[in-house]
């Protein structure tokens, strides 16, 4: 996929912006706090309809304004489509080729990108929720159909937790009231587990290969999925049954905790390097390399599952990569692909090289 042009209105520190990118490499230069990351964030927002660093939607809107939008024109194979995601006090809206989507979520993941950011270190080092978010983000990238299972699961979980929060209120009717949500949660939960297992087994191979490419070292990397309930390697129906059982075993504990204790929202991904757990035992350098490899694996997975090459967004990570990895990234953005890279200064490899160079200064962008 190629992001041909980007249009912003009232997004963060950009009152108005329209720029055109090229296929291949795009380098975005600027001093700190000029709006480089905001620019990449807006592109991430176009794809995922949320930010990877702000939790509130209205933080994305320029101070003193009510409405903002991000619009992109995207080339997907030979076709061209426009996607516009708006933020207003009432919520989000999405338009695909000028048509307003019934629910904005249906346009999520239609445009695909993979974001590399300095925070990626926490994919390895951080707590389990970071890795679950990574998996959910990947599923969202697969497009609205595959992402529906995650949405269904979240919805059922929210409902079930609401029930557990004041379960006394239901008295004898509690079991009857819980039943449909146990069903809904297990059904969606099993689908999430199937999706995640598939993803991790594909990513394991990618990570193994790219870790070796980057470091030259032959250390075995393993990604393991550790569920919050016992489930064999079986089909969705069997996992669903196991989860349903685990839920009924946990019912007393769940009432005490007033929240759902079983399911993919409590699952964990273990990343092992040479047989050791990387979260506690790997060096910071190893963790950084691994997190980089996870992003590469994410890109490759989206590519192999959907046949679309995601746009690569690299936010200020160039300075942290050694030259070998930099070359690897630039190579990855070959023909039919695109990378947008931010940096505070021109990296040595790029001087006089191909690609378009932009300079960001106080919310305005110019082509060098």
């Amino acid at each position, binding site marked *: 996929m190629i992001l041909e042009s980007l249009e912003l209105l009232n997004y963060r520190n950009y009152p108005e912006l329209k720029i055109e990118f090229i296929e291949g490499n795009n380098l975005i230069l600027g001093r700190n706090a000029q709006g480089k990351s905001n620019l990449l964030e807006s592109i991430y927002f176009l794809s995922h309809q949320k930010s990877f660093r702000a939790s509130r939607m209205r933080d994305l809107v320029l101070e003193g304004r009510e409405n903002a939008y991000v619009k992109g024109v995207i080339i997907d194979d030979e076709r061209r489509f426009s996607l516009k995601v708006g933020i207003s006090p009432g919520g989000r809206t999405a338009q695909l080729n000028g048509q307003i989507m019934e629910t904005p979520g249906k346009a999520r993941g239609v445009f695909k990108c993979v974001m590399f950011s300095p925070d990626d270190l926490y994919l390895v080092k951080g707590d389990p929720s970071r890795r679950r978010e990574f998996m959910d983000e990947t599923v969202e990238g697969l497009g609205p*159909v595959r992402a529906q299972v995650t949405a*269904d699961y979240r919805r059922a979980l929210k409902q079930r937790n609401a029930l557990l929060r004041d379960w006394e209120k239901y008295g004898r009717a509690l079991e009857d009231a819980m*039943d*449909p949500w146990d069903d*809904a949660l297990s059904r969606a939960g099993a689908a999430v587990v199937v999706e995640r297992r598939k993803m991790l087994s594909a990513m394991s191979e990618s990570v193994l290969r790219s870790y070796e490419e980057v470091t030259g070292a032959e250390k075995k990397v393993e990604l393991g999925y550790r569920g919050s309930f016992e489930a064999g390697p079986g089909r969705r129906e069997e996992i669903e049954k196991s989860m349903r059982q685990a839920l009924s075993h946990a019912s007393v504990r769940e009432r005490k905790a007033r929240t759902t204790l079983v399911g993919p929202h409590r699952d964990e991904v273990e990343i092992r390097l040479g047989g050791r757990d990387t979260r506690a035992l790997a060096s910071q350098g190893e963790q950084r390399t691994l997190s980089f490899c996870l992003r590469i694996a994410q890109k490759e997975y989206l590519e192999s599952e959907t046949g679309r090459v995601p746009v690569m967004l690299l936010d200020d990570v160039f300075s942290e990569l050694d030259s070998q990895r930099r070359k690897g990234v630039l190579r990855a953005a070959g023909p039919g692909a695109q990378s947008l890279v931010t940096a505070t200064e021109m990296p040595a490899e790029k001087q006089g090289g191909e690609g378009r160079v932009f300079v960001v200064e106080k919310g305005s962008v110019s082509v060098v």
Partner: protein
Amino acid sequence: MTRYTESVENLIENLCGLPGIGPKSAQRIALHLLSVPSEETDRLAAAIVSAKENVRYCSVCFNITEQDTCDICEDTRRDRTVLCVVEEPRDVIAIERSGSYRGIYHVLGGAISPIDGVGPEELRFAELMGRLRQGQVGELVIATNPNAEGEATAMYLSRMVRPLGITVTRIASGLPVGGDLEYADEVTLGRALEHRTPL
């Protein structure tokens, strides 16, 4: 002047929060009402009062009606062996418009949603069970919405009804008729494929 007078503010406040109406629309509607002749506003006010006074829930199916029982429940030509369960009265209208249903209805008054404090007790399940126990109904068609709450409600219902030996069916979800496959939204298309039927 940064605020409207008290009675205008009061009007805006009362409009705001109606389904689909935010503060800005409320303000626009209020100012519009003030600009039209008073016959028009009287008519609107009278329409609201009269609808509220005359309309009640059907004592059998809980659809809205102006009598004790609604026209559909009164209609002797309807097939009383098939009963369709819906969330809201507007769903009855939608199904009636299709012209392809000749059975009777039961309006639950919503869907199970703990977030909104709606459990089975808040809906008209007990009344439904009472009707089913009379033994006339042979098929129960569940036509709750195809979202998380609607599906959970359908599941709950099918479990409650199973011991009665009544056939329980769920309306299909899938493609809009007369549309192009290419333009169907992906989630709907995915669902339609999942629930494909043999020819």
